[in-house]
């Protein structure tokens, strides 16, 4: 059947569906972003309503933009380009539809549960466990549909875009499943299986690589398809694609700990996170170079074509963000920038510049082709581009200024470094108010740009006839066996063997201890020299092998998985398998009392971690401001960990006992009564809601399963313990004329807050975690 010509009609219906969903959820996600940015400026916009407070809406914003906006955009781009690159219709119309509707159902479920306070309390992993399972299942549907299509392809060789799609699908599955492992306590609530430093490490392995494999690799694949199409120019360099693809997927995974620099994370992991982030700079720029240099000879088209304008700007923002990332990963730079708006600016130059503009360029390119009608208005598309660009620049410049200003103020000391120059946290917050306003204006402009695109889209497709792409192809004959790689040739060939040897010796050198260090160093050096020599003499064999790899989708997938799995295994397994008791330095937490645990669940529900960290770094200004630096053992039993990533308010790791109960009681009802100038929302409902004591017995059982050393307690014991502790707090409140019933949520929350920073001292046993 090899010479038989067949006609294929692509499934462009699902592409159109995903494209319209991208438009819709993009606007929703950005609208929520503008709202939360307004709340930071004007606290009244929290409306004193639980489901409209910043702590619940910020997760909605991040999840909507990442998973709803970029997710739908990715699926549209992947499905459109893959069908054409492999010359085959998507394998199953049913799976395609299931994928689309399943994903939209997940988004709707998220948009309902997050404002209601149902959360796992981990950033970008907030969705509750039943939704997690749905996400995993739909992702499997996507994977099956995609790989099945590859299996039926009429184009034997896989183009670079497909490599990035493969890396996306397998890596996101791995990251998502591991970081969402939880034990349910009810239909809507669960505790993550990892706690404290382990949870922190797993979370940022996931969080960082969600950026890598959800926001970067699929979009790079989309760039590799749509940019040369729009520019009508050949891609700059195939070998640059090869080198930057493999180095990117291998190196990215290791860089997660740069989110935890100067914290209680073991030092060797911090060093790995920082150095691998720096090594990630060149592989990332490989993608930027291949994008920008593909435009050589087409730059004049930028004057007239909004699509190319968007792509060129997006790739430029990608380059800027991937230079900024390694810069921010340097420990001393991070000491200034971490917990500040600089990080917010960094992610938005990626999200607005790279993801948002790639989405816009792709949509403007696809609309005329999917609906067979010219774009309604090129002028409006150009207006969108300029509004968006000015919006991003305002936003990012404001966040740089804000982050550096606040970072410098928070870290400033006087009198020979012994005293904080700005002891009042709110002085630093109120200094950056103008920048927070400018960011709101920038974000608003960007949203207006997207609204203009939505109008343009509606005008373009209204009354238009959707059209599906078709192609006449020779049904492919099976690739000859000798061209495809078997299991042995997949693994035993010069590039893979030398890479494996290099990685192995590097690990021996890093973790081998005094004797083996030398072995690892010399072994690594010799492997590198041999590899260079071999490549110099027999480079065509390397190239020939990679050509064969490109016709062997299964081998390609396996090797990609090996490359992305290595870094995570080496970082996470040692930290997870060491006995919990060794994971602590010189201090250990005592388990929370039942009432404190109930208070902690309220803290997580309200999303306090979105503005408050619980991690005092090993830096003098942090210690002067918040107390002794945090130790690993102090958050040992925290499922989930609450170290936080942004300090819109002060750190709370040692807030326990700093103020009395009355202070917290007044503060939570009206933050400005105790802290003039604060932008924190008020929490009036905590004074009327009753603490959920009934679920505590089950929650304690789950905590016990997670190796938190709770004594056996009957439901009656739990009840008695809760009542006794609540009474001491209400008695203390009564002494200062603050009256409340002991069963109110505010009492549980005060119990938790007053407990923060309490620990027991134990003999240090840090050696176990050193490599």
């Amino acid at each position, binding site marked *: 059947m090899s010479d038989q010509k067949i006609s294929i009609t692509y499934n462009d219906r699902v592409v159109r569906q995903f494209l319209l969903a991208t438009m819709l959820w993009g606007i929703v996600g950005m609208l929520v972003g503008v709202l939360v940015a307004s709340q930071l400026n004007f606290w009244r916009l929290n409306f004193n309503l639980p489901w409209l407070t910043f702590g619940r809406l910020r997760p909605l914003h991040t999840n909507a933009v990442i998973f709803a906006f970029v997710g739908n955009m990715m699926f549209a781009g992947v499905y459109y380009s893959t069908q054409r690159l492999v010359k085959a219709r998507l394998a199953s119309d049913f799976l395609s539809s299931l994928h689309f509707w399943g994903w939209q159902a997940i988004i709707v479920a998220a948009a309902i549960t997050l404002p209601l306070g149902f959360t796992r309390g981990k950033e970008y992993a907030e969705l509750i466990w039943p939704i997690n399972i749905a996400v995993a299942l739909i992702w499997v549907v996507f994977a099956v549909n995609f790989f099945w299509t590859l299996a039926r392809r009429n184009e034997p060789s896989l183009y670079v875009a497909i490599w990035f799609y493969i890396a996306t699908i397998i890596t996101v599955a791995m990251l998502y499943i591991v970081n969402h492992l939880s034990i349910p306590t009810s239909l809507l609530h669960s505790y993550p299986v990892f706690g404290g430093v382990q949870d922190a490490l797993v979370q940022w392995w996931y969080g960082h690589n969600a950026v890598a494999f959800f926001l970067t690799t699929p979009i790079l694949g989309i760039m590799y398809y749509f940019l040369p199409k729009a520019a009508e120019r050949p891609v700059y360099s195939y070998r640059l694609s090869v080198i930057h693809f493999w180095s990117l997927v291998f190196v990215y995974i290791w860089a997660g700990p740069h989110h935890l620099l100067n914290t209680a994370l073991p030092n060797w992991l911090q060093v790995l996170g920082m150095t691998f982030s720096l090594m990630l700079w060149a592989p990332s720029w490989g993608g930027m170079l291949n994008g920008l240099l593909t435009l050589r000879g087409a730059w004049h088209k930028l004057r007239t074509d909004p699509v190319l304008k968007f792509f060129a700007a997006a790739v430029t923002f990608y380059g800027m963000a991937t230079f900024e990332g390694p810069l921010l990963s340097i420990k001393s730079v991070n000491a200034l920038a971490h917990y500040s708006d600089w990080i917010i600016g960094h992610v938005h130059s990626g999200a607005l510049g790279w993801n948002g503009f790639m989405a816009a360029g792709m949509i403007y390119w696809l609309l005329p082709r999917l609906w067979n009608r010219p774009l309604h208005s090129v002028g409006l598309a150009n207006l969108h581009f300029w509004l968006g660009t000015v919006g991003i620049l305002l936003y990012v410049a404001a966040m740089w200024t804000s982050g550096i200003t606040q970072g410098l103020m928070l870290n400033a000391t006087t*009198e020979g470094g012994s005293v904080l120059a700005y002891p*009042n946290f709110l002085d630093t917050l109120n200094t950056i108010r103008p920048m927070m306003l400018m960011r709101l204006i920038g974000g608003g402009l960007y949203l207006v740009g997207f609204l203009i695109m939505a109008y343009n889209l509606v005008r373009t497709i209204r009354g238009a006839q959707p059209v599906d792409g078709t192609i006449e192809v020779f049904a492919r004959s099976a690739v000859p066996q000798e061209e495809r790689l078997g299991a042995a040739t997949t693994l035993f060939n010069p590039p893979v063997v030398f890479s494996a040897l290099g990685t192995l010796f590097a690990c021996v050198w890093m973790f081998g201890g005094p004797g083996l260090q030398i072995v690892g160093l010399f072994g690594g050096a010799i492997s590198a020299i041999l590899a260079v020599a071999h490549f110099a003499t027999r480079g065509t064999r390397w190239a020939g092998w990679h050509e064969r790899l490109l016709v062997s989708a299964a081998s390609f997938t396996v090797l990609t998985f090996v490359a992305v799995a290595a870094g995570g295994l080496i970082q996470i397994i040692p930290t997870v398998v060491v006995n919990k008791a060794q994971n602590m330095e010189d201090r250990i937490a005592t388990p929370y009392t039942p009432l404190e645990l109930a208070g902690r669940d309220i803290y997580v529900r309200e999303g306090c971690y979105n503005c408050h960290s619980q991690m005092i770094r090993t830096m003098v200004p942090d210690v002067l401001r918040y107390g002794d630096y945090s130790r690993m053992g102090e958050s040992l039993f925290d499922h989930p960990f609450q170290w936080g990533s942004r300090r819109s308010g002060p750190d709370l790791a040692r807030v326990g006992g700093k103020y009395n109960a009355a202070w917290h009681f007044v503060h939570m009802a009206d933050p400005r009564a105790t802290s003039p100038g604060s932008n924190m929302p008020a929490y009036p409902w905590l004074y009327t809601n009753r603490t959920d004591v009934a679920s505590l017995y089950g929650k304690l059982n789950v905590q016990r399963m997670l190796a938190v050393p709770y004594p056996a307690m009957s439901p009656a014991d739990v009840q008695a313990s809760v009542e006794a502790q609540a009474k001491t707090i209400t008695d203390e409140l009564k002494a200062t004329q603050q009256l409340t019933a002991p069963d109110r949520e505010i009492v549980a929350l005060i119990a938790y807050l007053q407990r923060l920073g309490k620990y027991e001292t134990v003999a240090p046993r840090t050696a176990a975690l050193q490599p």
Partner: protein
Amino acid sequence: MKSPDAPPPASPTPGEDPLRPHTYDGIQEYDKRLPNWWLLTFYATIVFWIGYWMYFQQSGLSTSDGAKIDQHLAQVEAQKLAANAAFDDASLWKMSRNAVFVDAGRATFNATCASCHHATLIGGIGPSLVDAVWVHGAQPTQMLKVVNEGVLTKGMPAWGPILGPRKVSEVLAFILSHHTPPADLALATK
């Protein structure tokens, strides 16, 4: 697909680099050399990783973050001890009659203390500072100790580490300015 040794097809325009033999949905690829500056950047970061790891993890020359901050904190502590030793009851009373100290103290008090003790010092969440009742001792040095170290059981934070000795003494001067010094201290008032 052709073998990689096959000669590449002619370029679309003369003088251009050769294109790869394969096209994907009309997309062609050059196979240009990797830019040298890009390769050097990559190599430099790898060398940096090796050097950085050796220095911080293997050489024994670096101190751990914990040891480093403990050293810094010891220096801070020493400085504070030296500064605190300078205050006695008489000098604090004297400061309380000095408008510069009192005005500076008022600013810090309003920002830091007024939320519990009220801007007019009449008390609220915390006790009044204008009445004659001093729970933890009426001597200025005793009050200084309360502000510096706090009364954790009652929710009074330790302000010494946060404000530093100078600001704490100014706050105390402001509080004392609401009271009359004992007669045996002959203080020159302006």
